[in-house]
């Protein structure tokens, strides 16, 4: 049954009175009646009370505020201030120090002494109130009794509150002492741009306790062998050498075989490693997400009455909400930071190194510019042959020299190849391409990482099988024949020490838009090459506009210095060779960290 608008209006009036404390017995009975008759009003009532509660009561205390409140509660008891100092020392002084057991006894004795004194004071107040003569008034006797009883109850409530608070304070103080001097369970192995709530030094030994990472990244090495990479903002607790609690934030755990059974708890779930690498995202009341990168892990909801735990395998991801419900979610390979590099200042989330981004001056992870030219003839930034708003593009004759690129961190150099004069230099360390074919000895366009190729004063898209390339989502490097570009793998490895480059992958072809531009006499045919330290590792010959895109996959073993991409004219003429490499990338994987089991100071 739905309430009428009159009923609703009356209901809201009653809630207003409730809020202002003016709801007497009869209106309260009316409220009770309406709540009983109209279930929809029950929801409204709950929402209203919680709103009222949120507005007027609770200011969640930060840890500092809690500490401050606790201090005030102790400080209001007269006595030595060193009582507090005995407990609440500077955390950096406490960590790693032994605690004299006699201090514990001193704390307990002092706390008990203060409790006893407070309760005695309250008893004194109560006795005094009882001894005071009652004033007679016009109030009737029953009401006087009610007032007296309320007064007594009020004092008892005060004493009870004080007792509860004192007990809790005592428990906190003892627990703080206990937690601060607990065993070392892990160490801070590394960090980048990290800001903590407490002072933290590199390689600091970490005791059991709570931590808050406000900014940056940190890698924590547990004593039993688990490595956890935490991304700020995050709050967590180190529970033991094999267990932690993530209150909020994201972490990636890599668990060595010796640490199998490593456990991460959130508000919603418990995750136990079964030999794996996994990522966890959590919030205090939001759902918890688990992504399994490698191996297996068990996931158990924590809510009472929730479903039983389940095992996840590589490539699976699940979400657990506050009620314990578990559902599948999309596995996201790049959802977690998996490595960070303090020297170079960037992070890796599992994505490949994008060579188009590198060509734009980036680190391969999206920091480069799009639509950037590299002049083949000089190795400098080009203008795309646009001078004073006019195009000056025309065929250039190759000087057959290798031009070192100094201003882009991972681009070694560029060149225009012609094998008619012998082997062609393809790196700054004089790697030679001995089988470079003869070409027309000219080139038309500089190396470009944007989404078009120009011809006839117009821009034409880079398209293969209907898919456009040259964007952030689908990057590309245009190498109109005859052109080549070399990438420096050693430089990348230096800046990303935890990553291993394992493969070069790409598509290559001639843009389909060339079809509309070609006349019947033109063919537009190009050859594509991938060289590693000057050695041919891939070739696709005689590719024209009608050819299928060629898939390139070149495995790399970890010692190669350079990868070179080249396009040459397949028919002795570079005309309409709108050739490009689509999504050129270096696949990488994390090098597993190896370290001894015990972490010592």
């Amino acid at each position, binding site marked *: 049954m739905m309430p009428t608008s009159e009923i609703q209006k009356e209901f809201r009036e009653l809630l207003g009175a409730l809020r202002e404390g003016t709801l007497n017995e009869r209106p309260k009975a009316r409220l009770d009646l309406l709540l009983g008759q109209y279930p929809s009003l029950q929801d409204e009532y709950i*929402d209203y*009370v*919680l*709103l009222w509660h949120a507005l007027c*009561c609770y200011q969640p205390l930060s840890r500092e505020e809690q500490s401050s409140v606790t201090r005030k509660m102790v400080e209001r008891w007269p006595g030595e201030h060193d009582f507090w100092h005995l407990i609440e020392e500077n955390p950096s002084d406490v960590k790693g120090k032994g605690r004299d057991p006699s201090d514990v006894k001193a704390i307990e004795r002092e706390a008990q002494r203060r409790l006893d004194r407070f309760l005695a004071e309250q008893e004194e107040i109560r006795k005094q109130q009882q001894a005071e003569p009652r004033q007679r008034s016009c109030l009737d006797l029953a009401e006087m009794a009610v007032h007296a009883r309320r007064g007594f109850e009020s004092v008892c409530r005060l004493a009870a509150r004080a007792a*509860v608070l004192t007990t809790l304070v005592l*428990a906190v103080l003892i627990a703080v002492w206990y937690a601060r001097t607990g065993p070392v369970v892990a160490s801070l192995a590394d960090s980048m741009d990290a800001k903590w709530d407490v002072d933290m030094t590199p390689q600091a030994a970490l005791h059991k306790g709570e931590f808050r990472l406000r900014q940056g990244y940190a890698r924590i090495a547990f004593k039993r062998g688990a490595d956890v990479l935490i991304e700020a903002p995050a709050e967590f607790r180190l529970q033991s050498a094999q267990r932690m609690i993530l209150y909020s934030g994201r972490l990636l755990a890599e668990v060595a075989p010796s640490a199998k059974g490593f456990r991460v708890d959130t508000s919603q779930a418990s995750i136990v490693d079964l030999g794996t690498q996994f990522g966890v995202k959590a919030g205090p*009341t939001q759902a918890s997400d688990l992504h399994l990168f490698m191996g297996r892990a068990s996931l158990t909801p924590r809510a009472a009455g929730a479903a039983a735990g389940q095992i996840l395998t590589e490539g699976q991801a699940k979400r657990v909400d506050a009620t314990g419900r578990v559902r599948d979610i999309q596995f996201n390979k790049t959802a977690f930071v998996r490595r960070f590099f303090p020297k170079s200042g960037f992070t890796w989330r599992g994505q490949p190194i994008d060579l188009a981004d590198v060509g734009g001056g980036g680190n391969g992870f999206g920091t480069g510019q799009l639509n950037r030219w590299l002049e083949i003839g000089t190795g400098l930034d080009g203008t795309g042959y646009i001078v004073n708003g006019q195009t000056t593009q025309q065929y250039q004759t190759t000087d057959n020299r290798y031009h070192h690129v100094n201003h882009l961190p991972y681009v070694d150099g560029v060149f225009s190849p012609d094998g008619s004069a012998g082997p062609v230099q393809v790196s700054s360390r004089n790697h030679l391409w001995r089988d470079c074919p003869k070409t027309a000895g000219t080139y038309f366009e500089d190396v470009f990482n944007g989404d078009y190729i120009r011809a006839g004063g117009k821009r034409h898209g880079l398209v293969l099988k209907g898919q456009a390339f040259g964007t952030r989502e689908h990057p590309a490097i245009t190498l109109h024949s005859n052109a080549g570009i070399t990438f420096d793998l050693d430089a990348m490895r230096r800046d990303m020490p935890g990553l291993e480059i394992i493969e070069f992958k790409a598509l290559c072809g001639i843009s389909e838009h060339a079809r509309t531009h070609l006349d019947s006499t033109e063919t537009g045919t190009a050859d594509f090459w991938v060289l590693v330290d000057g050695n041919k590792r891939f070739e696709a010959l005689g590719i024209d506009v009608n050819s299928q895109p060629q898939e390139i996959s070149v495995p790399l073993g970890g010692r190669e210095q350079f990868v070179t991409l080249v396009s040459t004219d397949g028919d002795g003429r570079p005309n309409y060779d709108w050739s490009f490499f689509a999504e050129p990338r270096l696949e990488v994987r994390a090098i597993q960290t190896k370290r001894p089991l015990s972490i010592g100071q």
Partner: protein
Amino acid sequence: MSHSSNDPSPHGDEFMRLYLTHEHKIRGYILCLVSNWADADDIQQQAAVVMWKKYATFSSQQHFLHWALRIAHYEIMNYLQKKRNRLPSYSPSVLEALEAKAVKAVQEEDRRREALQTCVARLRPRDQELLRLRYETGATIQAVAATVERSVDAIYKALNRIHYQLLQCIRSRLVEQENRL
């Protein structure tokens, strides 16, 4: 994690953390059933003592909030039983219905508070000021009326209107978030 000892003090830090994390939800739940601040405070303190004493029996397989709300529930019932001659409370069927809804509602308390922040920000500055006077300063409705030089009745009606505006806004935001999840 089960505790083998009856003495909860070695786990005091853990209990405090859990309790403080959920304290506002526990109080919200109690308030939904007794609708009186002073009584809610009393019940919460008694419930806290019971939780503290019984923490040794709390298993990590349980959810702390659910466990705490059950204890709070019993304390509410005890309290109402003791005070029934003095304190008018809701009828048993209403209490039962409210109890189930309150348990569910307080679990999304943090989302409600986030939604509240957004919804307060959307209020007109004058309405925000009224809320601030009433709640942040703790002033009575009479004092607020005196401060803004309006009648008590006008302030009372304005606060009613603002509360309902916030209520509708919060409900919309919660529904939006549900649909997004």
